């Protein structure tokens, strides 16, 4: 890797790290938010509760890292869910159908926007 590429990679990582440094906490006591307003988001909330909450409680850190404070695009979240990463297992479509994954990602984005 050339020096210019190293500097660019460091810059990108730095910018992303800054973007990811906010609090990941989103619970009702801290934010005052209510229930998700649409049926799709409510489906996503139930899917999140079944498959994600135990390692990322409320989208914050726990066994796994926090999700709420990372500016990941939806397609990359889906990629990681489908393929797994490190200690996180893969969730194939026979376990998590596409419709449920889409709803979960939309819910996660909605939750991410409920900042304290």
């Amino acid at each position: 890797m050339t020096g210019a590429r190293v500097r660019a990679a460091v810059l990108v990582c730095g910018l992303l790290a800054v973007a990811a440094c906010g609090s990941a906490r989103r619970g009702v006591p801290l934010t005052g938010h209510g229930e998700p307003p649409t049926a799709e988001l409510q489906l996503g909330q139930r899917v999140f509760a079944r498959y994600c909450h135990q390692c990322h409680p409320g989208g914050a850190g726990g066994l796994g890292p926090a999700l709420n404070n990372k500016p990941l695009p939806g397609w990359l979240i889906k990629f990681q869910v489908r393929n797994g990463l490190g200690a996180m297992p893969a969730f194939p479509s026979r376990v998590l159908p596409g419709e449920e994954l889409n709803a979960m990602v939309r819910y996660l984005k909605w939750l991410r926007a409920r900042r304290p």
Partner: protein
Amino acid sequence: MTARRGARAAPLLALLLCSGCFRLLPSRGGGETRFEPPRRIEPADVALPAGYRIEPVAQGLTFPTSVAFDGEGGVYVTEAGYSYGEVVLEPKLLRVEPDGRTTLVASGRNPPWNGATFADGAFYIGGGHLAHGQILRVTRDGRVSVLVDSLPSLGDHHTNGPVLGPDGWLYWGQGTATNAGVVGPDNYDYGWLQRYPRFHDVPCADVTLAGRNFTTANPLTPEDDRATTGAFVPFGVATTAGQVIRGRPRCGGAVLRVRPTGGEPEVVAWGLRNPFALAFSPDGALYATENQYDVRGSRPVFGAGDLLWRVQPGVWYGWPDFYAGRALNQEWFDPPGGRPRPELLLARHPNAPPRPAALLGVHSASSGIDFSRGPAFGHAGQAFVAQFGDLAPTVGKVVSPVGFKVVRVDVASGVIHDFAVNRGSTNGPASRLGGGGLERPLGLRFDPTGAALYVVDFGVMTTVDGQPRPRPGTGVLWRISRAPGTAPGAAPEDTP
């Protein structure tokens, strides 16, 4: 994926690897902190949904575990008399006076007293670890008698507190001896294997083994030798394929019941690792919290969050071979560090395990449970669960503190909401965050009016150097109720 998209993904994946790789990150459990007494108590450091308030009712308690009400306005707490970390004291039942002072009602010699309930003019207390587990009957004037004895409570998990069912029977959870069915060096570290080297798990019905054995260091001998141990047998005893282990009604990993007048206990359900607390919902259904597998011992299991079960009579719930209806012999549960996958211990399983009502945080130690029953508090029919909080790294690594709060669970959907949490940019106990809020919520129960939720906060327990270190005198009994002038049952509005 296109090449352009792949190029865009590279730095994002790099960020994920930098900030989210489990193996690279250090353990950051809630107890992995230093504590300098005294414990501060500051209700304003606890965040609640709009319209609720929290206040301390009693302070300076030592290892409190549960709260009970006598129906005449009296509030009582149990002090365990034992804590992980091998601290042994006297278990107590205390009356909490209106000014917050406590008066001794009764004490015992077989801690821990894990929970109490009041029924038919007496308290019923579950406990025991230094000797076999018991259900005790304690009168208001402090006379103690044994209702049930000889429960298998000498191991990791104990006899837990009973509740009164709508059928008039007393129901309680009995924990297992081990993490995942096999006695190992982790049980020596917990302190009981050297006391009771022949103790092991006991099933509630006959089980047939697959014959899997585990060879480990032998901490019971001074020599540098090794021992081979199978499932449901003492340390150092191997098993064979097809071997049958006889079940007994005084078994571990079960919900049991007995009449308040005494008699032989009955098995309600089994295959539950440590069903710490039980509660009946307003529609009469029995629910249990279950503390799930740790990443420790001869058969470590990774990634198993605590569970909330709707308990059906006669059903086996999966321990030691399943988690939340999933068999353990798959990638999901592989322990880190290249340790072996947890292969199945039983050759045949009593039934296909059901799916839980809710999945709670891994290592959250989700414990006390009760249901709101009406508009006086709100959220009628929903469960409230006290989360003691992780004991990382002893039970396994976490990258951020888990638990240390009270959550609300919609048992119909499985959705979990924070309800009482410490303020701050991260989650954790007050001793870690530097505030005066919650430490380790363990028990909770609504008062007889249903208007106030009492939360039993065990107090400070750190895990520096990998060993639990509980601090006597730091326990608190909190009360959560609606703030004056707020509409009962109202839900906060969304703020888009």
